[in-house]
C-alpha cells in the first residue's frame, strides 16, 4: 500500500466511524425512548387490572358449583357450517372424563368498559414501544455493520423486541392472549433495565470466529425460541396458580379476595395449560434446529460439531428437559401440574444457559464480551 492510499483509507474509516458513532447514539436514544413508552404501557395495563377489579366476577365458582349440581359433565354445542339456510346439524363436544368444564375468564379488564379502554390503550402503547425498540435494534445493527447479536447487551435488546413481537403476533392472530400483557411488559422492562445498566457494551466488532452466516441462523432462531419458551413459561406459571384456585373452589375452599379478583379474570386452567403446551410444542422443533445449526457452525469454527462446551451442554440439557415435558404429556399420570413443573424446569435451564453460563462458567462461547 502506498502512503497516500493509506491516508485515504484512514480518512474513509474515520468518516465511517463517525456515522457509526451517530447511529450507535441514535440506537441508544431509541432504546431509552422505548423503555419510556413501555413504562407508560405498563401503567395502562395496571389501570386495566385495577378497573377490572371493581367489577363482579365469579364465573369459575359458578361453573364449578353448577357442574357439581348437575349429574353429568357440561356439554358445549357448536353450530356447524356457518350460515345455514335450514338448521344444520350441531356438533356436540364433550370434555374428557374428569376434566373440569370451566369457562375462560374475561381478561384483565374483567368485563369493565373503562378497564377495556385502558387495556386497548396499553396494547397500542406496546405496539408503539415495540416499533421504537425495533428501530433501536436496527440502528444498532447498522452502526456495527453486522447482526446485532455480538454480546449480551445486544442479545437482550433483541430478545425483548422478539418477545413483544411474539405477543403482538398472537394478538394479531386473534388469539386470546391479552392477559399476558402485564407480565410480559414487566419482564421486558426488567430485561431492558439490565441491558442498559449492567450489560451495556459500546458497539464493537465480532471476533473473526463469530463471522459466519450460521451466526444469523443459529442466533436468530435461538432468540425466537427463547421468546416463545418465555411466553410458554408465563402461561405455565399462571396455569399453576389458576389450577390451585380451581382446586380450592372445587373442594369447597374460599380463596382470598385478591386471588379471586386476579385469577377469575384469567382463562380457565385447562385453557392455560393447553396454550402453554401448544406454545412449547410448536417451538420445540425449532429449538432442535437451533442446536443443530449451532453444531454445524461449531463444526466450521472450532473443528468439531459437538464438544461439550458449557453452552452446548446446557442447550442439550434444555432440549432434553423439554423432551421430558413432551414425553410427560404423552404419558398418562404425568399430565397437569407435574408436567407443568417440568416445563418450568426446562425454561429454567434455558435461562441458566443464557445468563448463568455467560456469567459464571467460562467456555468458548463467553468471549464475545458480557
Amino acid at each position, binding site marked *: 500500500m502506498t502512503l497516500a492510499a493509506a491516508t485515504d483509507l484512514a480518512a474513509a*474509516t*474515520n468518516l465511517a*466511524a463517525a456515522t457509526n458513532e451517530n447511529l450507535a447514539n441514535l440506537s441508544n436514544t431509541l432504546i431509552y425512548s422505548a423503555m419510556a413508552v413501555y413504562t407508560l404501557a405498563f401503567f395502562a395495563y395496571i389501570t386495566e387490572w385495577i378497573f377490572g377489579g371493581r367489577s363482579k366476577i365469579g364465573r369459575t365458582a359458578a361453573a364449578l358449583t353448577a*357442574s357439581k349440581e348437575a*349429574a*353429568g*359433565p*357440561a*356439554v*358445549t*354445542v*357448536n353450530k*356447524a*357450517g356457518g350460515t345455514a339456510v*335450514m338448521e*344444520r*346439524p*350441531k*356438533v*356436540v363436544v*364433550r370434555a374428557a*372424563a374428569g*376434566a373440569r368444564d370451566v369457562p375462560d375468564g374475561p381478561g384483565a379488564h374483567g368485563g369493565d368498559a373503562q378497564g377495556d379502554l385502558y387495556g386497548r390503550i396499553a396494547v397500542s402503547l406496546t405496539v408503539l414501544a415495540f416499533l421504537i425498540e425495533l428501530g433501536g435494534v436496527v440502528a444498532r445493527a447498522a452502526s456495527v455493520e453486522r447482526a446485532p447479536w455480538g454480546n449480551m447487551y445486544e442479545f437482550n435488546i433483541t430478545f425483548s423486541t422478539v418477545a413483544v413481537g411474539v405477543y403482538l403476533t398472537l394478538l394479531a392472530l386473534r388469539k386470546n392472549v391479552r392477559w399476558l400483557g402485564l407480565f410480559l411488559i414487566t419482564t421486558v422492562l426488567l430485561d431492558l433495565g439490565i441491558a442498559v445498566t449492567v450489560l451495556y457494551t*459500546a*458497539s*464493537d*466488532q465480532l*471476533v*473473526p470466529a463469530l*463471522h*459466519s452466516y450460521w451466526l444469523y441462523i443459529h442466533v436468530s432462531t435461538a432468540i425466537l425460541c427463547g421468546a416463545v419458551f418465555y411466553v410458554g413459561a408465563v402461561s405455565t406459571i399462571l396455569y399453576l396458580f389458576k389450577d390451585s384456585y380451581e382446586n380450592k373452589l372445587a373442594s369447597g375452599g374460599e380463596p382470598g379476595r385478591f386471588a379471586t379478583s386476579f385469577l377469575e379474570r384469567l382463562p380457565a386452567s385447562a385453557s392455560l395449560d*393447553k396454550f402453554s403446551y*401448544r406454545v412449547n410444542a*410448536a417451538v*420445540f*422443533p425449532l429449538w*432442535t434446529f437451533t442446536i*443443530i445449526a449451532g453444531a*454445524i457452525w461449531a463444526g*466450521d*469454527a472450532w*473443528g468439531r*460439531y*459437538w*464438544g*461439550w462446551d*458449557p453452552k452446548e*451442554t*446446557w442447550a*442439550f*440439557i434444555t432440549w*432434553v*428437559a423439554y*423432551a*421430558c415435558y413432551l414425553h410427560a404429556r*404423552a*404419558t398418562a*399420570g404425568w399430565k397437569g401440574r407435574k408436567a407443568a413443573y417440568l416445563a418450568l424446569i426446562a425454561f429454567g*435451564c434455558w435461562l441458566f444457559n443464557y445468563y448463568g453460563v455467560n456469567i459464571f*462458567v467460562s467456555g468458548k462461547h463467553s468471549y464475545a464480551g458480557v
Partner: protein
Amino acid sequence: MSKTTTGAPADPTPDEQDLGAAGSQLSTAPKEELPSLPSLGVIGWARWFWRQLTSMRVALLLLLLLSLGAIPGSLIPQTGTDETKVADFRDAHPALGDVYDKLGLFHVYSSVWFSAIYILLFVSLIGCIVPRTWQFVGQLRGRPPGAPRRMTRLPAYTTWRTGAEPEQVREAALALLKKRRFRAHLTGDAVAAEKGYLREVGNLAFHIALIVLLTAFAWGQLFKMEGNKLIVEGDGFSNTITQYDDFKSGNLFSQDDLDPFSFTLDDFTGTYEPSGPNKGTPRTYQAALDYSIGAYGKDKKTTVKVNEPLEIGDSKVYLTAHGYAPVITVRDGKGNVVYSQAVPLLPLDSNVTSSGAIKVMDGYRNAKGVKEQLGFQAFFLPSYVPGNEVASQFPALTNPVLNLEAYHGDLGVDAGIPQSVYQLDKSHLKEFKNSKGEQLRENLKPGETMKLPNGAGSVTYEGTKEWANFQITRQPGSGWALGGAVTAIFGLAGSLFIQRRRVWVRAVKGDDGVTVVEMAGLGRSESAKVPEELGDLAGILYDQAPGVPDADDAPADPSVSPDPQVVPAEGAEQ
C-alpha cells in the same frame, strides 16, 4: 357461535366394549403397566426388567437422568476441554480432586455412569421402537376399526334425519371422506375413516433418527483424530503423524486413516479495526495455501479463513491461531552464518506482544574455536510506541521491535527431557555481558544487528514473517449425524403438528322409515380441530342429504344424548 348447556343424565348401562375397539390403537404408544413383581425365576425377571426398561415411565426417568448427569460436566473443569484447568483445580482442592477422580467427574461425558445412562436409554429406545414399528405396520395393513354402537359417547358427535336413502348417504360419505384423503371403508351400516398416519410415521422417524444420530456420534468419537501444526509463511506440511506438534485420536483410529495431502502456507493476512474504541479488534484472518492431494497430486491454491476450513477427503484443515516469526541470522566470530531461520514466537496478549527463544544448537564455535551453544530470549512488539516497552499497542506490524537477551553455554536440549521451544533453560547458560558488565540485551529494528562481545559473533533481525496454526481434524460419521438430525426435525414436526383422528358416519332407517345419519369424531386428544372438521364434513354431507324437519331433531335429546362415560382422549394434547 357456541352456547353452553349443562349435561344430560347419566346412561345407566355404559357399554365399554364397543368403544374399546373404535378407540383402540389410535397411537402406538406402549400401554403403561403398573410395576408388579414377577415370580417366575430368571426368565420372569428378565422379562420384567425388559418391560420396565422399555416403558415410557422409565424412558422419562432416563431422559431426566441424562440431563441431570450432563450438569456436572458443565460446571467442573473437564480434561477433554481444558487440561490445565483440571490441573489447577487438583492443586487447589487435592482432597476434592481425588473424590472427583473416583467419580469420573473430570471426564463426565466418557465416564462409566454417564455412558450407562445413555446406553440404557439407547436400549430402551430400540426396545420401544421395534414393537411400535410392527404395530404401526399392522395398523397400516388393517383398516380403520368400525363404528362404535353408541357413537354419542365420542368426543364430537352430530346427527340429523334425512329423506335420502341410507345407502346413498353412506356412499356420499365414503366419497367425501376419500376425497378428503381419509382412509375410509364401509363396514356394516357405517363408514369408518381415519387420517393423519403421518403423525406416527413422523414419530417413528424421529426416534429412529435419534438412534442414527447417537450411533454416528459414537462412531465419530471412536475414529476421530485431531492434530495441530504451526507453520511459518513459506513452510509446508504433509499429513503424517510425525509432522504434528500434537496429536489426539479416538480409540479405534489407525494411522492408515490419515488422508494423504500436503500444503504450504504462502501468506497469512490479518486485518484489524484501525481506530475507534475497539481499535485492534481483529476483523479478518486468512491464510493463502498451496495444497496437493495424494503423493503426486496437482498443486492447487486456496484460502482458509477462521470459519471456512479446507476440506480434503474426510479431513478438515482449520485456521486456529497466528503470530509473528522474526527471521534471525546468527554469525560466528569469523562471519560464517551458523543459524538462519524464522523463529515463531508465542503471542501473550490481544495486541500480539510475543515472547520466545532462539536456540543455536550446533555449528557454532566461540572466539576460541570451542564448540558452544547460543541462546537468546526474545521479546517482540509488533507495534512499539516509545514509552511503552512492555506491551505492543496494536496487533499489526506497524513498528516492530525485537528485544534480545543473549546467552551462551549449554542449552540442556540433549538431556532428553522435553523442553518448551518458547523458553530457555538457563541452568547451564552464561550471560553475555556488555561493556558495562551488565547482561547484554538490545532492541532491534528490522535489518539491525546486535554484536556479541569479544568477537563472539553477531545476531541480525532480518525481517518478520507470520505464522499460522492449523488444526487438522477428521470426524467420520458427521454426514450421518447431520442426516439423522435433519430427519429428526422433520419427524418431530410431523409428530407434533399432525393430528391422527377417526370419523364414522352411520346411516340407518329409523323405526318411522326416515333415515337417521349419525357422525362422530375421535382424535388422539381433545382438540378443537376434531369437532371443527366434523362440523365441516357434516355440513357438506348435509347438503347432499338434506334434513327433514322433525320434532325430536335435537342432538341433546336425553334419550340419545351423552352419558358421562366418555372416551378419554388418548395421548398428548394438540
